[in-house]
């Protein structure tokens, strides 16, 4: 394609936006609304996932050993697990003394002075952190079958709840995103259909003069892509301001929640939200117009 033809096509695409002003505005508004909802939803979900993930990282399995098992044997189990169990993120060895210190600090405070020897002599243990809490039951079963192991303490409820929540979030977000995409594609394709109807005569003339299919279609596709671009840029800007204001507002209003609600900074959210929104906007603009042009332009 010639440079001048490229700019002509681009120019026609831009002019098309103005030629069907109302349909253009309607589809920008709807894509914008969809992507606005998507942006809000995405921000909430990523923050929620962030909270869940932080909580998950704290979930651990504690392994206690039989009486008389030596530190060497425990460390051997540790390195065996680290080597053979991929779901293991980190294992911390807690010696009997360290366990006693921890217990004293946490529960006894100044009353601990009365003990002369370590009452938790057999409480040397392994603290195992998982990469993915949903793998916990399998790991526990495996560890329980090791002969030197006396007991495995786990926080099953937490683990199951968290992995369940995570799945739910994934399904709900996928569902909402699919619905939004379908609505947007439908709207874009309506806009382009209107555009084609409005300019049927022009398309006919083009065909009589000998325009290639590509040349007839290109302005409509450009139009769709532009609508998608504008339709994603506007909500991105709005969500950016809403988000930054919302997190400062919530953080200042509910100070007691601030340890629990650890908001992600807007840059972190936008690192993914920005390219995803643009890709969705431009993608539905392109697909919607391309498919519609194919269907309605028998060039």
């Amino acid at each position: 394609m010639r440079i001048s033809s490229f700019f002509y096509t681009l120019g026609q695409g831009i002019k098309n936006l103005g030629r069907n002003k109302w349909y253009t505005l309607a589809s920008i508004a709807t894509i914008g609304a969809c992507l606005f909802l998507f942006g809000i939803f995405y921000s909430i979900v990523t923050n929620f996932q962030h909270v869940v993930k932080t909580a998950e990282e704290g979930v651990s399995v504690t392994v206690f050993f039989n009486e008389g098992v030596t530190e060497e044997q425990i460390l051997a189990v540790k390195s065996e697990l680290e080597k053979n169990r991929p779901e293991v993120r980190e294992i911390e060895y807690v010696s009997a003394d360290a366990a006693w210190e921890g217990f004293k600090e946490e529960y006894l405070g100044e009353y601990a002075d009365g003990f002369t020897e370590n009452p938790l002599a057999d409480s040397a243990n392994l603290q195992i952190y998982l990469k993915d809490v949903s793998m916990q039951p399998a790991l526990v079963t495996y560890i329980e079958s090791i002969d030197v192991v006396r007991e495995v303490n786990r926080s099953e409820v937490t683990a199951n709840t968290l992995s369940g929540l995570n799945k739910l979030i994934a399904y709900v977000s996928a569902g909402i995103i699919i619905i939004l995409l379908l609505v947007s594609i439908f709207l874009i394709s309506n806009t382009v259909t209107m555009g084609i109807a409005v300019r049927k005569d022009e398309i006919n003339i083009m065909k009589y003069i000998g325009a290639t299919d590509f040349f007839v279609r290109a302005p409509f596709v450009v139009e769709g892509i532009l609508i998608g671009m504008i339709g994603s840029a506007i909500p991105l800007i709005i969500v950016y301001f809403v988000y930054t204001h919302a997190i400062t507002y919530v953080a200042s209003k509910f100070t007691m929640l601030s340890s629990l609600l650890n908001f992600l900074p807007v840059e972190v959210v936008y690192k993914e939200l920005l390219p995803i929104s643009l890709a969705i906007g431009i993608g539905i603009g392109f697909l919607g117009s391309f498919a519609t042009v194919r269907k309605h332009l028998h060039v």
Partner: protein
Amino acid sequence: MERGYRKKRLNRQIPEDEIITLENVTKSYSSGAPALNGVNLHIKRGEFVFIVGDSGSGKSTLIKLLLRELTPTEGEITVLGYNLKRIKHRKIPKFRRNLGIVFQDFRLLKDRNVYENVAFAQRIVQTPTREIKRNVPSILATVNLAGKYKNKINQLSGGEQQRVALARALVNKPTILLADEPTGNLDPNNSWEIMKLMEQINENGTTVIVVTHNREIVNAMKKRVITMKKGVIIEDEEEGMYIDED
């Protein structure tokens, strides 16, 4: 392949200077009698041909077949070496760039001015902007519209609008100009002006085919006249006359 096929199907070789050939062409729409019925027609490069006949006799159908808007139900059509029955869809644009087409209802872009309407035809075939700027004023001068290049279409008379359409059809330098009732909406003076322009274009080498109901002009211009009736060519004469019904 295509050449071999053509030799086998056609009764004779197409002479070098024959640019339009119809052999036993029949066109039926979904209902009713065929719009064209076994038409044979040969037109040479550089000819000026009138096509006349009653309403519904198949003139527009013939034009549409020539520009490959329609395909024949039976028979073979060859235009400028393209077999229009078998031409591939993606080759059609290239074929049409050899044609200039004018309609009764002008079919101009009403949201653009005179210059843009003519330049439009050049844009579509991807002429460089530099050449467009040279070609459009020159063709507008040919149709006597040089002074009105900035006018919007709805600020023009019918005759002027048809001259814009003519300029648009000519700017890509077609080999064949097809005009379906180009003067159907014009008064006698404007009709004459358009016909004279087309004659001038023909004298410069373009083959011109004009469908018309204008008896006076046909009789005065002394060109080849093809008369159609109920889908059949009933008369084909050099320096022919407009035949009256009854």
